[in-house]
């Protein structure tokens, strides 16, 4: 692909009409709470955008984030934008391999120093030799590549928060990008995998506005992660009425009742699944009958079982309660024995006092 081609030209060469592109821009604008008056400006800016330099680094990951973006049913504008921007360096997608591939990364770093975007999927093992690319550890490659970056997008829960590789006992001592890079603007786009629109949305926002979108306290774009899935869930009326599926094949499940008792983590999860949905708005996990697993939240692997519901305690209740009862019996029995001894002593003292004057008078 020529580096001079604009995004608009590229999309048209792929058969995307301007009308469809404007539709995409308005979806994006509404998702990212950009005023509707800005849609035209946004479309124009995006259309004229020249290919931005992007380096995509893949570390301890499963490639699910890339797959999520690329393997949609029909080539979406999201995936095409992704194609458009991401070809400088990407293990999975680039044609080059070995030292030629590494040269491409180094060339981009030099030619676009201070301007290129770094997208990262996967966490980084602190124990360097657990994951290397072309003999370079993930940690060193990240630090080296991030040095000249304009901004970093941590794509997927693994790069944003450590994800599955960081799950207890975290054998590789996996770290998130934010734990390593402290001096660059970082946007976390978590999810296992993240919603494709959230990835392209952040990129489109950056290309249009020249800055990163507003973020929440976990570094996620508020436009996609500002709302609780439970608050946007179409099963919510069943939750409010107290109608719950008790198992995956009972009447409640067939009638589409709330999945709260089956461990749905949506009440503590922030993501756009319930309204943006997946596969071009076809469905999302709760709609297909499985509760949310909370994949866009830090450490979701270690926050209780997938089928443990939100309010249930996260501890071994049988052991704790048995221990508590035994402790109570021991301490209670001890207290009772001490109290009885004291009582007898007092009784004895009173009896002694009562008998003392008698013995005095008798002598």
């Amino acid at each position, binding site marked *: 692909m020529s580096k001079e081609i604009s995004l608009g030209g590229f999309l048209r060469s792929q058969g995307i009409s301007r009308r469809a592109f404007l539709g995409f821009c308005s979806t994006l604008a509404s998702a990212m709470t950009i005023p509707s008056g800005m849609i035209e400006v946004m479309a124009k800016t995006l259309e004229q955008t020249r290919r931005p330099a992007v380096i995509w680094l893949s570390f301890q990951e499963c490639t699910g984030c890339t797959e999520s973006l690329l393997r949609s049913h029909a080539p979406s504008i999201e995936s095409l934008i992704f194609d458009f921007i991401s070809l400088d360096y990407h293990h999975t997608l680039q044609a080059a391999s070995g030292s030629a591939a590494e040269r491409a990364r180094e060339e981009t770093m030099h030619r676009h120093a201070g301007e290129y975007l770094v997208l990262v999927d996967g966490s980084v093992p602190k124990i360097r030799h657990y994951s290397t690319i072309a003999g370079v550890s993930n940690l060193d490659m990240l630090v080296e590549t991030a040095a000249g970056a304009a901004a970093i997008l941590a794509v997927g829960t693994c790069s944003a928060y450590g994800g599955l590789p960081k799950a207890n006992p975290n054998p590789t001592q996996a770290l998130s990008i934010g734990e390593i890079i402290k001096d660059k603007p970082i946007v976390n786009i978590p999810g296992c995998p993240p919603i494709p629109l959230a990835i392209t949305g952040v990129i489109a926002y950056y290309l249009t506005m020249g800055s990163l979108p507003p973020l929440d306290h976990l570094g996620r774009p508020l436009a996609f992660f500002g709302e609780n899935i439970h608050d946007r869930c179409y099963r919510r009326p069943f939750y409010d*009425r107290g109608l719950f599926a008790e198992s995956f094949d009972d009447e409640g499940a067939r009638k589409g009742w709330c999945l709260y008792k089956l461990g749905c983590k949506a009440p503590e999860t922030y993501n756009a699944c319930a309204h943006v949905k997946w596969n071009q708005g076809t469905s999302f996990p709760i709609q297909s009958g499985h509760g949310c697993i909370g994949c866009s939240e830090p450490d979701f692997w270690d926050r209780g079982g997938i089928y443990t*519901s939100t309010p249930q305690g996260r501890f071994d209740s049988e052991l704790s309660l048995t221990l508590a009862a035994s402790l109570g019996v021991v301490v209670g029995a001890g207290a009772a024995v001490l109290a009885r001894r004291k009582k007898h002593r007092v009784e004895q003292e009173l009896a002694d006092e009562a008998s003392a004057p008698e013995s005095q008078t008798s002598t």
Partner: protein
Amino acid sequence: MTLLDYARGPVIQAALVIMIAGIIWRLLGVLVLTRAADLSRPRDAFGNFKGYRTVFSRAWPSSEFLTATRYQTVMAYVFHLATLVVVIGIVPHIEFIQGLTGASWPGLPNGVGVACGIIALASLVALIMRRLTKPAVYCSTWGDYFAWFVVAMPLVTGLMAFAHLGPRYETLLALHILAAALFFAWFPFGKLMHAFWFVFSRAQSGIAYARKGVQI
């Protein structure tokens, strides 16, 4: 570890251990103490039976005291019943209890739970207002106010969590669990133990009075 993970993990676990160990400790410590035999001749042959009956008959004030105590008696009943419905009726609580014991039962719709929660809180406020406005009647100690606080907090935070008032839901849920943990941990050591003591203290006074021939 987030505040929620901390609250529904080690904090609530420790609070439950303290509560159960504390209750058994206090019950055993007091009940194992025997009283010296009363050598007097009982004036009422059915004294013991009548004494035990007091556990139930004292559930409502006797007519002489009714006018003076109606307000707090009614409020206390409203509070206890509404709280009971909230504690065992709403689904998140049933889920918590099920996680702990395995027992489960059908829950109430959220609207009923919220209504009962509001009623419970309103009656609790009505009770503290009376206590504050009639210091001579109550001779309150800090323990009275603290007991009120540890009961009010789970209600306030629970209602806030449901209504999504203030901080994010998971933070409110964590605060609610922390408030419940404070309640559990304090339960054996303050006035809240009346949940157990009322049976023994009523029976004890009933038996003592009945033995002496007092009309009860």
